[in-house]
């Protein structure tokens, strides 16, 4: 993927989104492609209007949270008791400031709550009941469970009947093909060169109450540093944690490796050390991009001046005029 022309040129705003990296046949739907494209356009509208990477990344993720086709916010998977517990995080590359929530109940847009953690507190991560208390104080309403639960999430919950490990093996292992659902994320760069990464998820189906995956953990599910690049990951959360995937990709980029090669190398490393698959999107400070996955699918869209590129299967990339 090409970068902006020459060091002296103005920085080209850009945004990449992903709608989860999984290996399930049912995942590969047209509705999912449309969902990520719509999210990319939502973020792009802000960048085009000279908006910040922060606003753009949040808008893109909110769009995916509100879309029941994807598994963040509305449409998220349920824990083993049939409850909704959401995780989200956002990180600003200029200051390395970040905000995250985990295990928050029934909030429509956890990414916006994560942003409040970053902007209104001196903390990086607030979990559980405390996150809901914080949401109340910030005037962020809790919605009834029914508003967030989709048909397919309920179906998944019933089918798995609490069997989390089977779900994992099916979802993330490229050798098997079953139902699967995951995280959404975005990385953005604005005209000032500020880079932001954001992730949001309801976690995996039938997870233990209080289970937190990679998404809200800075350095694990996401990372952003203006001097290096921005990264958002998706896939088998526990394995992503073990190899600190996002900061690994960031470290490779710091060594001068391109985002494409950095994501590829890190994902292979994860596969070797843990046996599980994942996906990652990354951008470096020159605007070069990396979009790779070791699961069967990852719906993604990349938008910058003049073009929208998107895909879902390996080696697939469609380009449209933006």
């Amino acid at each position, binding site marked *: 993927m090409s970068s902006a022309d020459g060091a002296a040129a103005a920085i080209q705003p850009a945004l990449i989104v992903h709608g989860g990296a999984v290996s399930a046949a049912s995942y590969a739907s047209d509705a999912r492609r449309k969902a990520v494209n719509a999210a990319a356009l939502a973020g792009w509208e802000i960048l085009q209007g000279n908006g910040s990477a922060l606003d753009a990344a949040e808008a893109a993720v909110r769009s995916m949270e509100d879309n029941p086709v994807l598994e963040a916010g509305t449409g998220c998977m349920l824990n083993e008791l049939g409850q909704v517990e959401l995780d989200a995080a956002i990180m600003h590359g200029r200051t390395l400031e970040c905000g995250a929530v985990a295990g928050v109940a029934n909030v429509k847009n956890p990414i916006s709550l994560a942003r409040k953690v970053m902007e209104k507190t001196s903390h990086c991560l607030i*979990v559980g009941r405390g996150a809901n208390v914080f949401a109340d104080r910030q005037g962020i309403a809790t919605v009834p469970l029914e508003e967030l639960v989709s048909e397919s999430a309920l179906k998944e919950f019933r089918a798995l009947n609490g069997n989390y490990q089977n779900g994992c093996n099916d979802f993330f292992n490229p050798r098997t093909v079953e139902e699967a659902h995951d995280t959404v994320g975005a990385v953005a760069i604005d005209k000032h060169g500020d880079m932001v990464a954001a992730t949001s998820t309801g976690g995996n189906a039938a997870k233990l109450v209080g289970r937190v995956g990679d998404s809200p953990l800075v350095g694990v599910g996401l990372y952003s540093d203006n001097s290096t690049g921005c990264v958002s990951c998706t896939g088998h959360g526990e394995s992503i944690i073990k190899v600190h995937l996002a900061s690994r990709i960031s470290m490779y980029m710091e060594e001068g490796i391109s985002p494409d090669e950095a994501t590829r190398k890190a994902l292979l490393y994860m596969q070797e050390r843990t046996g599980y698959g994942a996906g990652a999107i990354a951008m470096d400070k020159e605007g070069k991009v990396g979009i790779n996955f070791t699961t069967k699918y990852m719906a993604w869209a990349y938008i910058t001046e003049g073009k929208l590129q998107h895909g879902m299967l390996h080696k697939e990339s469609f380009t449209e005029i933006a």
Partner: protein
Amino acid sequence: MPGAVVLVHGGAGKIPKANNDVDNQARLYGVKSAATAAYEALLAGASAVDAAETAVRCLEDFPVFNAGVGSRLNLAGEVEMDAAIMDGRGLRAGAVGAVKNVKNPVSLARKIMDLTPHVLLVGEGASQFAQESGVQLVPMQELITEKSRRALAQVKSLPFGIDPKAEEEEEEHGTVGAAVMDTAGNLATSISTGGISGKHVGRVGDSPIIGGGIYCDNMVGAAVATGQGESIIRTCLANNIIQLMSTGMAPQQAGDSALETMRQRVSGLAGVIVLDRHGNSGICCNTGHMSWAQLKDNELSWGLSADDRNTEEISL
């Protein structure tokens, strides 16, 4: 084949005022006891993971440390604890965030690692799992000390409330931790904390974030941090140290370098104990104060700061 090594710390903070000599002696006693208990376990054939758990359990049980008994209180006056354990073999890990009423959170982290397909459990879910897993539960009052109450009262009296750099600016001593190598050469790390006085309910710091406050990989080394949690998270301190060691840098230099990077990028201060896969250690701290103890080759070392190095031969 390197022999057993145990390295523990009792938390990094500002140099305490002179009249806290009693506390300093208590901290030294605590870290030496914890290191000794873990080392004896290793010599008796325990695994690195067992010894790492043993060391931090000791520190959690000493009220002078900000972990388990003696944990600092959140804004609502409650004890909410974070802990984690990591096994260098296979990168296995277990962690808890904002758990209540557990006497030894590091043992709960171990149960999560050994008994569930997950790494991190938080809040109510962590407490529920604690009940099911059989770890010892205690009334919250048993974990609260007069010192913790006073520390909270002090924070509440500040005009703007909690300061993000509080953990190393006030007389707060943070997270406890251990890095261990067993007689087979396996590495393990453990970490536990009550967090910052007056933190928001549900605030989780760096301790249960794998790659932030803790990391361990048999192929490279181990690192455990203490200090300003948000700064550690934002700069992925443990990851950075492991990365530097993977390029061949010695543990002491890797720790010092990573701490300096953190200080430059986000103005945060911290301490960290480091082991490489050959059993070489690093004791690093730029906050001014960190109680620590190391046992290696029947030699016990200890100090109240990274520069304070005392040694004695022991026979076990």
